[in-house]
């Protein structure tokens, strides 16, 4: 059957990482997919998976949820760049109009020992959850909602806290870091509380607990390349890392035990 080529159609050669489980040997598998420039990158993978299912083969496992750039589920390194070539864009918001007909694209999982591969492109990122559980919370009185503006917050701090809170926990910072360090993530999660009055009661305890958990998970140490900031789909700044360093030193000096 001759298929008529529609306007905006692209032929993409995908090399996708196939790995059966943690520690199993993996390899790239090459597939040709017809894409349309309006598709997102995840939709391209959907098309590929449909092709595979139709021909009786196993589809690739990849994570996805909201597909609108805010959940942090999609995690894949596209041609050596976490989330692909477009700045401040998650893989789900990356559209095929970034590519040209005949392009060859390599897709592999996040690679870090603290993020073991579950299958194909899916990694276990629960290390992030454990860092968050160690100190990423505030003590609040539950019950009726407090009055708005009952606690005064400096505008500059509110803005910085909001910027830090924009972190979606996708792990692109770890994936992009030459040392697989989680300092951008941890510092963003720490900063969003440290900058606000509600975060003060646990301030020291939080810095110590989150950094200690981060170290225990086996992430590398930051050597200030700032690749994380460049890879972050939310543009989280490395000034958060500097803040975390200060906070950790301050908490060490103030600790009683």
């Amino acid at each position, binding site marked *: 059957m001759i298929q008529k080529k529609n306007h905006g159609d692209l032929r993409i050669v995908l090399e996708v*990482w196939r790995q059966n489980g943690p520690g199993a040997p*993996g390899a*790239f598998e090459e597939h040709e997919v017809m894409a349309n420039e309006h598709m997102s990158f995840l939709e391209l993978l959907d098309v590929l998976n449909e092709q595979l299912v139709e021909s009786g083969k196993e589809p690739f496992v990849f994570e996805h949820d909201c597909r609108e750039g805010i959940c942090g589920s999609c995690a894949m*390194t596209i*041609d*050596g*760049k*976490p989330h692909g070539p477009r700045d401040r864009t998650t893989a789900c918001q990356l559209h095929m109009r970034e590519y040209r007909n005949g392009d060859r694209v*390599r897709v*592999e999982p996040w*690679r*870090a*020992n*603290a993020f073991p*591969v579950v299958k194909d492109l899916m990694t276990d990122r629960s290390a992030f959850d454990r860092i968050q559980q160690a100190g990423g919370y505030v003590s609040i009185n539950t019950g009726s909602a407090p009055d708005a503006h009952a606690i005064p917050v400096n505008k500059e701090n509110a803005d910085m806290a909001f910027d830090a809170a924009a972190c979606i926990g996708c792990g692109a910072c770890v994936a*992009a870091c*030459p*040392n*697989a*360090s989680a*300092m951008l993530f941890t510092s963003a999660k720490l900063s969003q509380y440290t900058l606000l009055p509600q975060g003060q009661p646990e301030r020291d305890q939080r810095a110590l607990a989150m*950094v*200690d958990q*981060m*170290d225990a998970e*086996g*992430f*590398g*140490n*930051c*050597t*200030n*390349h*700032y*690749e994380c*900031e*460049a*890879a972050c789909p939310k543009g989280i700044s*490395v*000034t958060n*890392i*500097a*803040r*975390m*360093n*200060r*906070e*950790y*030193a301050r908490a*060490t000096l103030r*600790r009683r*035990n």
Partner: protein
Amino acid sequence: MNSFIRFLNSSIGRKYVMAVTGLSLTLFLLVHMAGNLTIYAGNEAFNEYADLLESNPLLPLAEAGLLGLFVVHVLFAVLLTGKNKTSRTDRYQANLGMGAKTVASTTMWITGPVLLVFLIIHIWDFRISKELMKEYDLAQMVVDRLRHPVGFMIYSGAIAMVGLHMWHAFQSAFQTLGVAHPRYRALIQNTGRLITVLLVAGFGGIPFYLFFTG
């Protein structure tokens, strides 16, 4: 566990040690470089300066402090780099890169050990060997060393390594210490670059001057 020990066992604590010792060593290099410049005023001026230093009764103390700084800087570099190199054992197949890292930042773990090897040669050349001599003319030792093609190559190469190491190190140390207010970011970066250029020109000029005028 003692909180200080806990700090030194943490990623951030170890980075603090690297930053503090690194900045101290930078300060030392600037003083060392300024002293070296006396060789442009002739061998006598250089020897007079060396005498002045050597006759100071506090010199052994300063030397011990300096040795301590180097040992701690190297030791913590080994600890930190060891963990960094084992945090990703399954490597990427494609070239990983967002374009933020530099040649200087990615070669710190290479320029560091190379400088350590150079340091051992350098200390042998001008510190240990003179202990074995009854009489010595330090300026003449420097001139002989740097006019020899091998000596010239080692010393000018090492200074290039210092430049590469320092290009990344200065701003990196401030970021680690938590001094990274956006208003001072450019100032810190430019100060680091200026110090790097000063060190390379100050130290590096001497082998070139001696080798090509000799």
